[in-house]
């Protein structure tokens, strides 16, 4: 969507391009340079945070495609991450498989799981679908726990850093670029998918399923494809997550993880790719921001025990505030700010969206 007024598309090529105006290219280049230069100036702590943001972004994009675009409510997201991580762990521990085997394997198993999770969506909608995905999440985590118990990996499974050829991926700087690249690929993929036939079919299913069926969209196929796409992306992110943390254990894949991802897409703004990006940044950084506020306020020692509980509660509070005050999410806020500047000095109430 072009920012500039006075910009007209004069060819089909221009219509299809992702970035249109010169200012658009300008901003993009500046952003890219900034992101590439960032790790050389940032502390390891900020580097870690940024890497976490990229990693979570892949999963958030997947969930946004599934729930935001295709309209299939899924509360089993942590199950996909767990599957990717466990496949990696199992292959690593049992067969000592390298990353170029575990990564596609995670994706493959994720796809199978996506089909399984997606089957109820052919019959159920709304609340029922949500609860079925919730049930499957618990079953997946139970199976993971059983594996850990049976094979004796009590404290969880430790994974060595992956290697491509003789080159070990261990340095935080290397991880930053790897995850940046992965997130970028995922982002590009999602943006294009949304503009494609599949994306349009999904939106049609989300908005008016009966009509979609009537105009010839193969509803079951597209519903399953939404689940499978989301599942594959998420389980690949699960595999990367396992390598990044170097550790797989069932406690990390709780319902709270799913809730964090759902919060990302809701706070970001349901139904937009930009929403997934903004939401991820917000949710990953929020706890640390609250920590920062706590530290900046110089709270006396005794009270810090209470501060922690406040931080714990504030995540829920922030979510509630967003849901009540701004259901459109961060994207809606961004649009408002952007429109204000575009229309300036004319102050006109914009239409929604």
């Amino acid at each position: 969507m072009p920012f500039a007024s006075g910009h007209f598309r004069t060819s089909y090529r221009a219509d299809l391009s992702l970035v249109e105006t010169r200012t658009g290219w300008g901003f993009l280049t500046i952003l890219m340079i900034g992101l590439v230069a960032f790790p050389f100036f940032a502390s390891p702590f900020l580097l870690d945070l940024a890497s976490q943001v990229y990693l979570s972004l892949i999963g958030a994009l997947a969930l946004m495609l599934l729930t935001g675009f295709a309209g299939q409510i899924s509360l089993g997201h942590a199950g996909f991450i767990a599957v990717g991580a466990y496949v990696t762990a199992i292959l690593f521990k049992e067969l000592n498989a390298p990353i170029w085997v575990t990564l596609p394997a995670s994706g493959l198993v994720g796809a199978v799981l996506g089909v399984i999770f997606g089957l109820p969506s052919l019959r159920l909608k709304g609340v029922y679908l949500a609860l079925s995905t919730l049930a499957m999440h618990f079953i997946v985590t139970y199976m993971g726990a059983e594996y850990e118990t049976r094979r004796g990996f009590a404290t969880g499974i430790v994974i060595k850093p992956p290697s491509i050829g003789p080159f070990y991926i261990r340095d935080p700087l290397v991880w930053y670029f790897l995850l940046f690249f992965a997130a970028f690929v995922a982002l590009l993929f999602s943006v294009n998918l949304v503009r494609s036939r599949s994306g349009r079919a999904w939106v049609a299913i989300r908005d008016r399923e009966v009509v979609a069926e009537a105009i010839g969209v193969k509803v079951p196929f597209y519903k399953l494809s939404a689940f499978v796409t989301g599942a594959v992306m998420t389980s690949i992110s699960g595999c990367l997550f396992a390598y990044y943390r170097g550790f797989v254990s069932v406690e990390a894949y709780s319902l709270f993880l799913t809730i964090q991802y759902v919060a990302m897409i809701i706070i970001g703004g349901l139904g937009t790719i930009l929403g997934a990006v903004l939401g991820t940044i917000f949710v990953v950084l929020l706890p640390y921001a609250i920590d920062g506020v706590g530290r900046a306020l110089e709270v006396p020692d005794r009270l810090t025990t209470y501060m922690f509980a406040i931080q714990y509660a504030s995540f829920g509070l922030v979510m509630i505030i967003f849901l009540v005050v701004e259901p459109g999410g961060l994207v809606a806020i961004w649009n408002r700010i952007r429109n204000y500047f575009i229309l300036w000095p004319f102050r006109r109430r914009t239409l929604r969206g």
Partner: protein
Amino acid sequence: MQIIVNTVVLASLYSLIGCGFVLIYRASRVVNLAQGELMAMGGYFLFTVAMGLFKDPVPSFFVASIFSMALGFMIYLFLMRFMAGESVFAAILATIALGILLRGLITLIWTSQLWHPLEKMGITNGSHTLIKDAVISTFGIVTVLSAFLIYVALFLCLKFTRWGLRMQAVGENPLLASRRGIKLHNYYALSWGVAAFTGGFAGMIQSCDSILEPGMVAIGLKTFPVVLVGGLDSLIGVIPGAFIVAIAEVIAINYISPQASEAAPFIVLLAMLLIRPWGLFGTKEELERV
């Protein structure tokens, strides 16, 4: 025989938690994922009241119940009221966020220590022998009895009192009900208040029978299979649902493995969703035919 007694007590506990859930869904079609947290709050209210105000069990329970009900009303007033027109997903998420907030507040106010309200009230949870040396605890009996009484009371209220009939009307056809002059918000708030009360009461009993700790909220999660099996909007359905899930759990513990008992309710849930999604007694909602 002991296994049967255990199952009955467990099923009663689930039905107490589940009926609040059904009430809210029936009135406003909102799925309340914070029912476990409401239950825990009830237990904590009881603890605070027993510690500070009254030492005897009966007034403590009574006052704590009032607090729980007030909590339900406040939740509606400050949160769920705004969710009235929003999508299903947003409403579900609002209750999830509410759950997180409540859990944080519990840790803030009461810390994560393990508490025993019974200690403060000075009574003990004795055991009584029933038939053939199957034993039940005092609070086990309280669970079963109160589940029974509350159900009867709810049933009678819904069927025969003006409030109950209006709440049913609001659930079935909100538009028509509001045209008729029934204030929707009041009845939604009422459903939340009653749900918080029944859930809180279950929490109070559980905290006396067992222990009071923040981890209690996990029981609420197991309630979804219960209400789904029975039918999301069927009060009567909660009871068979509770029994089925309780039996599945107990069988899992005794004959499969203890870990399976965590997954068993959800396997039952899945099975139900695939066979008969609207549950045993729920109203048929429109579904897809593939």
